[in-house]
Every structure is written in C-alpha cells, then in structure tokens.
C-alpha cells in the first residue's frame, strides 16, 4: 500500500484542508454579509492581517487561543469601524477607503511585529483540540474533523447562524433590502445607515477571527503579509456566492482542498513548485470569472451610498 494512502497521511490531508479553509470561509462570510447590505469592503486583506497579529500577540501572552480569537475579532471590528464611519455614515468612496484599510492593516501589523518580534520570531504551541467523543475515533475523518480546535466548530456554527439570520429573521431581510433597494428599507421604517454599519462591523469581526485562525491554528505564528491575497479571494468568493452561505462554505472547502492537494503533490516528489500552488486559486477564480462573469449578479445597490431622495 502506498504511503500516500496511509491513515496518518489522509488524516494530515484533512487537517490541511481545514487549516486553509477556515480563514477564507470566515472572511468570505463577513464579506457576504457586507455585500448583501450594499457595502463592498476592499479592506479584508488588512483586516485579516490585523486580526492575525493581535490574535497572535494575545495568544502568545496569555497562552489562551480563545482569548487570541477574541483579540483578533476585536481588532477586526476596530479597523472596519473606519469603513463604517467614512463610507456608510458619510458616504465617502468605498473603494478608496477599502484600499486605505488594506494598506493600514498591512502596514500596522508589519510594523508592530517587526518592532517586537523580528529578532525572536516566536511560535505558538499546537492548538488544543476539541475532541468529539466517539466521532473522533472514526479513522481518517475522526481525527481530521472531530479533533480540531474548537474554533473550527464555531466557524461552522457561525456559517449556519449567519445563513439562518439572513433568511429567517426580520433583521436579515432588512439587511438584504439595504443591498437591493435602500429606499424601500427607508420607507419601511428601517435605518439603512445602521444596517450597513452593523454589517460592516460584522464583516470586520469575521475577518479578524479568520486572520486569528490563520495565525494561531493554520500557521502557528504570525508573519507580516502572511495572507498573500486571501482577503481578495474572500471578496471574490462572496461575490460569486451571491449571498448563499452554502456556496461560501463549499468554495472555501474547494480552496482548502486545492491548497492541501498542492502540498500533497510536493510530497510525492512530483516537484510542483510552491508558486504553482500559490497561484492555483487565483487561476481558478479567473477561469470562473471568465465563464460566469456575465452572470455575476451583485446586489443592485452595491457600493452605492444611500442618500434619501435620490432615485
């Protein structure tokens, strides 16, 4: 039997898939909520990095991954508040502010890291696993899926809750209305500004948490610029999923499999360059955009500031 198909190897594969999947899934989840409310947040890349850095710092200092995730989430919310204030409340260009947030997050996390950890380059210990009794005893899938850090379960739960919230609650309906036709929400007595602001802050929280997952669980450390365009992939995933959370999860899973497969291929001695693996998701996205570009229906009012009385 080939060593590739050994139980330990397959388990490692499943773990690798999840490690790549979760940060993208969380970020795309947050971006989906933002886009459905009519805000295009181009700052995800910066939010991921800031979330990753602060998550890393707090986890390193306290030894608690959960506190790390909390710190990453808070950092993401804080940075995305800039977008909420400037673009949602004051109606300033979402694209310019989004780029600003990406640059600010990238610069801030890098400068802070270089100042404090450049020489020591500390690493975190392995993430404590949340083991589901019995299920974790199933070969391959068991240790792969059911002995993950608890944040994995929380992420899946967040996806389910977000989907339920978007489609089963009055608040979710109002949020989608803000993205489709803000004037209708206004006439129905809802607040477009409040709805969109909260959506942006939620997006910040999810990206912050995703960045923290990337640093704490996937990499075990923080390195400046470690996202390599993951934030922009999240934006595309959200655009293509068009508000359907199940597609966000599946696309993230696909991304995880792609990255894990690349790693596997390197073990086989096929000598696949690391660059090909890095490039693959972007190539896939371009192919998808070429094939479905004409049908990418975004919320009607995306990236349009709402001014009462404008039609």
């Amino acid at each position, binding site marked *: 039997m080939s060593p590739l198909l050994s139980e330990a190897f397959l388990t490692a594969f499943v773990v690798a898939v999840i490690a790549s999947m979760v940060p993208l899934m969380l970020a795309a989840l947050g971006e989906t909520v933002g886009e459905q409310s009519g805000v295009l947040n181009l700052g995800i890349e910066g939010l991921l990095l800031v979330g990753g850095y602060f998550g890393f710092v707090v986890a390193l200092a306290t030894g608690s991954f959960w506190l790390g995730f909390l710190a990453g989430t808070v950092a993401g919310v804080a940075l995305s508040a800039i977008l909420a204030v400037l673009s949602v409340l004051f109606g*300033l260009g979402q694209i310019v502010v989004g780029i*600003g947030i990406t*640059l600010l997050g990238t610069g801030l996390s890098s400068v802070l890291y270089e*100042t404090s950890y450049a020489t020591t380059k500390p690493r975190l210990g392995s993430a404590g696993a949340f083991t589901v009794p019995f299920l974790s005893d199933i070969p391959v899938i068991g240790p792969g899926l059911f002995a993950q850090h608890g944040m994995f379960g929380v992420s899946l739960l967040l996806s389910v809750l977000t989907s339920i919230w978007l489609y089963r609650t009055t608040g979710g309906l109002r949020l989608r209305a803000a993205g489709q036709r803000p004037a209708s929400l206004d006439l129905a007595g809802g607040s477009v500004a409040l709805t969109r602001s909260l959506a942006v802050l939620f997006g910040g929280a999810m990206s912050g948490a995703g960045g923290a997952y990337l640093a704490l669980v996937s990499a075990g450390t923080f390195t400046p610029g470690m996202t390599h*365009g993951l934030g922009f992939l999240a934006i595309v995933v959200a*655009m293509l999923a068009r508000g359907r959370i199940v597609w966000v999860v599946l696309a993230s899973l696909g991304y995880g499999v792609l990255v894990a497969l690349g790693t596997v291929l390197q073990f086989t001695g096929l000598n696949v*360059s690391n*660059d090909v693996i890095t490039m693959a998701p972007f190539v896939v996205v371009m192919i998808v*955009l070429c094939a479905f570009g004409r049908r990418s229906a975004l919320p009607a009012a995306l990236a349009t500031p709402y001014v009462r009385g404008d039609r």
Partner: protein
Amino acid sequence: MRGPRDAIEVLVRTVAPIVLALATAGLVMWAMGVDPLRFYGDVIALGIGGNGWQRTLTAMAPLLLVALGLIIAFRARLWNLGYGGTYVLAAAVVAGTAPGIMGALPFGLGVAVLCLLAAAVGVALGLLPALLKARFGTNEIITSLMMSFIAISLANMLVKGPFQDPGVTVPQTRVLDLAYMLPYIPGTRVHVGVLIALAIVLLFHFILTRSSFGLKVDVLGASAKAAAHAGINVRSLIVAVLLLSSGTIALAAAVDMLGLWGHMRTNWNPGYGDKILPFVFLARQNPLGSIPLVAVYAVLATGGTIAAQQVGLSVDFLLIVVALILLFMTVIELLGRRRDLGASYLGAARSGTGRAS
C-alpha cells in the same frame, strides 16, 4: 475662471491630508518610543541632504511612471489594481532577458526592445481584465487583482527557473553588466531613466488634458452612459485605457531594472503602486501635478527607509503613512463636498475648454 481663493483651497486640500497623516504617524511613533521630530528631520536630511537628492531622483523614475499608469486608468474611473503583479512580472522578464538582449544588440536598440518587452508584459496582463470589463462589465477591481497575484507567482517561477543565474545559489537573475545599464546624467549619480519618465509624463499630460482622446477618457470617467450617448466607443476605450495603464506600469519596471537594480530576486516587490496611490488622488489625476507629489513621496521613501532602519522601525511604516493620507484625504473631501459636485479628488476638474488659458 479660477480665483485665488480656489487656488488656496486646492493647495490646502492637497497639503492637509499629508500633514495630518504625518502628524498622526508621528503620534504612533511617539507611542512606540521614537522621537517623531527627529525622525522627520532625519527623513529630510537623508532624503534631500548630502547625496539624498540623487537617491530621491533615482527613486522617482519608476514612481512617476507607476503614478502615470494609475492616472490613466483612474481618469476613466477604471480601477486597475493589478499594478503590483504587473510591475513585478515585467521586472522579472526584463531582468531575466536583459543580459542576453543587451549583449546581442546595440545599446539604444537593446533598451528599446526591453522597454517594448516590458510594455508587452503589461498589455498581456491587462488584456483579460480589460476584455471582461468591456464585454461583460465584470468588475475590473477583482480581475486585475487576481491577475496581479498570478503575475507575482509567475515572476517567482521565472526567476527560480529559466532566468536563474546558475552561478549563485540564491534564486536571482544574472546581474546586468554596468556597461549595459542606463547611463548617469553627467555630473550626477542619477540615471537618465528619470528624464525618460519625466518626458513620458509630460507627453501624457498633454494627451490627457489637451487632446480629444483625453477628453474621451474624462467623459468615460464622468459617466459611461454619457460616453455612450456622446458616440464614444466605450468598449474599445475601456480596453485602450486599461492596456495603456498596465503598459505604463510595466514600463516603470523596465526603467527601474535597467537604471537602478540590474537584477531581480524572488519575492522582491517594492510595492510602488500601493504607496503612490494616495498621491495620485492628491494630484487629482493630473500628470503634471503628480510630479511634485511623487517627489514628496520619493523623499519620504528614500529618507524614511534609512531613518527607519536607524531607529529600528520597519520600513512598512511608510504603508501606514500612505494609508493615513488616503483616509484623511476622504475626510477632507467631506469638508468641501457641497461646493465641488461631490468629487474634488476623483473628478478630473476641467472647468474650461482646457486648463487656464
């Protein structure tokens, strides 16, 4: 036409975001235990004083062209954000092929061929986003960014693969012989690339602000609907603008490689586009106006890089400064919104049949 009050307002709007950003960054520095006044003093001393001005001028060469590439696209309100990958892949191709081409061809011809090659790389990278935008209206922000990441990986593959210098162990291209690099301006250590860049910027200033092509670009930027209504072929103009933009950014890489670096390593990315972006807005997409602003950034970059190293600050500190400029710029815009039809930085403000006559 424009009164002195308007001129003062424009000046304030241009300078205020920079001052506010530097002040805020100074506060951050102060919090990190660095004396901001000394730091900024060092930036000016190192960026202008001594040989600093020569380093600054050298740095301006690629920056001017990258800024121009962004200006061309932004005037048409097309968000070409693929500048990072465009620059890096063009740089890799030029660095990898320069030793061979310059060895085989006469100097002037060799430089011309390499510049064309770089521009061709830019055009190739811009083609897909341009066609998708023109044909289906696919968001060019996303497609150009995706192409950028693909290009960065391709550049690394080239430098590790066909372009790698077999003589060294680290993955890098062969170092270009000094004799094959762009000559210095007599009496200085500044290569002529900066003059080439200035000439191209001036040329495009006249094309963009005075010609019918420039006016078409401005109309497209103001409203695609208005452009179609006026009988402008919107699709081909979108393609032309995006290709011109990418080509110019790629040209910056050729000038930089042939003038300053002479070789390229893997994962090398100076990130010019990210940092020059706010200054493009501050210049209101005016090529001539971008020259002093690019100079300001070049001083900040050359002086700031050394000054940051001296106090143990990451060079990425510049990213924070430019991000703050971008954010303060939007805030300043808010203050004057009612008087300026809502777009004081984005709108290519052309109140007359040309600029002030």
